[in-house]
């Protein structure tokens, strides 16, 4: 069922499902939503299956025209949402009529916006996933002209047929504040022993700033340089959130579209929950790193999972 026509793709709009897993052995990265929390709740507001294909809009500017009656939900970075020039709320199921024009402004807080459609977008999976990874030219709309590319003007988006639901809304208290202080909990690992105690102390006590080199592959930080005593190492597997430190001493947090193998020393990895926060930061935003043991990391995850399970969507009256 054709649901939308793209009028304007905005800065960058990518079709994403939960990510492409189990393909590292052939060098494919994960892709998927940079902020899984906002992505997941956009789908839940449409009562979609977990990981249903949605659109990740970076910064904003996406404009769609509905080709049929449907329902959508927009979550993530704070952005003005207009349907036929009428401002509508984010974090809520919205009823859309054929011919409606959906227009997203630009994020005032945060960087990633998610638009889910009832039933999820109907996209052919490549290597088991619809996640768009531009660097690899894989995922998203299929076909030579579109594969692995962001949405373009005139693209037609189809969605799976589903029955209409009664609109739901995220409780206000559960909506993240994208202006909050950003602390990246870091599990020490990999070549952490090759960083001096002084460098580690500096790394975990100083503020870093998001540089202009921040994209889906990784976020390069600006701040006090740290150095590894390892100068030559064999390239090895890189996990999500790994903090790579090249010779210039400026850490790079590797994210969804990271290279799967690399040879720079790594001090450890940022927890996925916190990379979601990092992905919402734009250039110039400040953050700091905080060490966390693997046991505490799992503890934090359990608590957060429990807290999330306690969020109950409310019926919109």
């Amino acid at each position, binding site marked *: 069922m054709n649901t939308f026509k793209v009028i304007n793709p905005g800065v960058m709009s990518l079709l994403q499902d939960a990510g492409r897993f189990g393909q590292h*052995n052939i060098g494919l990265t994960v892709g998927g939503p940079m902020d899984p929390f906002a992505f997941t709740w956009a789908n839940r507001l449409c009562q979609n299956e977990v990981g249903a294909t949605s659109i990740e809009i970076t910064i904003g500017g996406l404009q769609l025209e509905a080709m049929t009656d449907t329902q959508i939900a927009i979550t993530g970075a704070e952005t003005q949402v207009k349907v036929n020039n009428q401002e509508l709320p984010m974090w809520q199921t919205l009823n859309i009529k054929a011919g409606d024009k959906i227009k997203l402004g630009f994020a005032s807080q945060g960087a990633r916006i998610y638009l889910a459609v009832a039933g999820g977008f109907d996209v052919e999976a490549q290597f088991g996933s619809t996640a768009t990874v531009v660097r690899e030219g894989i995922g998203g709309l299929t076909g030579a002209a579109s594969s692995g590319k962001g949405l373009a003007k005139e693209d037609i988006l189809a969605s799976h047929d589903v029955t209409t639901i009664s609109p739901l809304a995220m409780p206000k208290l559960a909506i993240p504040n994208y202006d909050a202080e950003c602390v990246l909990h870091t599990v020490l690992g990999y070549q952490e022993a090759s960083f001096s105690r002084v460098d580690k102390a500096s790394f975990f006590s100083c503020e870093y700033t998001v540089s202009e080199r921040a994209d889906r592959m990784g976020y390069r930080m600006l701040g006090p340089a740290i150095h590894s005593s390892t100068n030559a190492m064999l390239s*090895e597997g890189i*996990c999500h959130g790994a903090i790579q430190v090249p010779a210039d001493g400026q850490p790079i947090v590797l994210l969804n579209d990271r290279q799967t193998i690399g040879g720079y020393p790594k001090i450890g990895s940022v927890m996925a929950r916190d990379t979601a926060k990092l992905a919402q930061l734009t250039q110039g935003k400040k953050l700091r790193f905080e060490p966390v043991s*693997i046991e505490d990391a799992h503890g934090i995850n359990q608590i957060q999972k429990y807290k999330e399970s306690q969020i109950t969507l409310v019926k919109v009256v």
Partner: protein
Amino acid sequence: MNTVTTPKVSAQMLPHLRLKVAGEQAFILYFAEQTSTQVAAQIQAATQALVELVGHSLIDLVPSYASLLVVFDDNQLEFYQARQLVLERIRQAAMQAEEEASQAGNQIILPVYYDVESGPDLEDLARAKALTTDEIIKLHYEQEYRVYAIGFAPGFAYLGELDERLAAPRLATPRKAVPKGAVAIADRQTAVYPSVSPGGWNLIGLCPVPMFDVTKTPSMPMTTGDRIKFEPISKADFIAMGGEL
């Protein structure tokens, strides 16, 4: 003949394995400091041992030069559980590989006439080991041996491992002439002398089957990797099979 062999996890590699935390749901196994074909084969073997877990408790595997990154599903496993699961799988694969290796090769049965007449060191050995000659014989033929090496003389196969209770030092003075077909033991090895030669091993019997025949292809009844089992025979059978005393 070209045979493509799938690398197997080697038990020798296990003590060298180093595990480091990579992230909240990933750890990295280092197999060596440097890369080599053997290391690469071990990483490939370990990856194969784990690949069936991908999509279940493991999310992804990234084998590289000297390491294997394991990404586990932290919705299902805690770090320690994941670590145990993965190391256990690798250990199992190593054990399985050893098991398979022990099943490989042909089994060859060699008849032996065990007696004080054919084995001049049998009685001395029994005394030294505080066993009866029958017990010595039984301990020798009950074991299955592997051909570890061929050398010393044409057709001389080094077989191991001998039961610990039979381990005996070589003779203080080697014999000038050990008879052809002599079944001998030294340390934890055993062998059948293919031809008359000097030798210092303890002789416990005679085997009527020729160990080396230049006119035959193959010239030896066994090759490295084969499994050897000895079967006790009577003097009459020994003679009937062409044995000479």
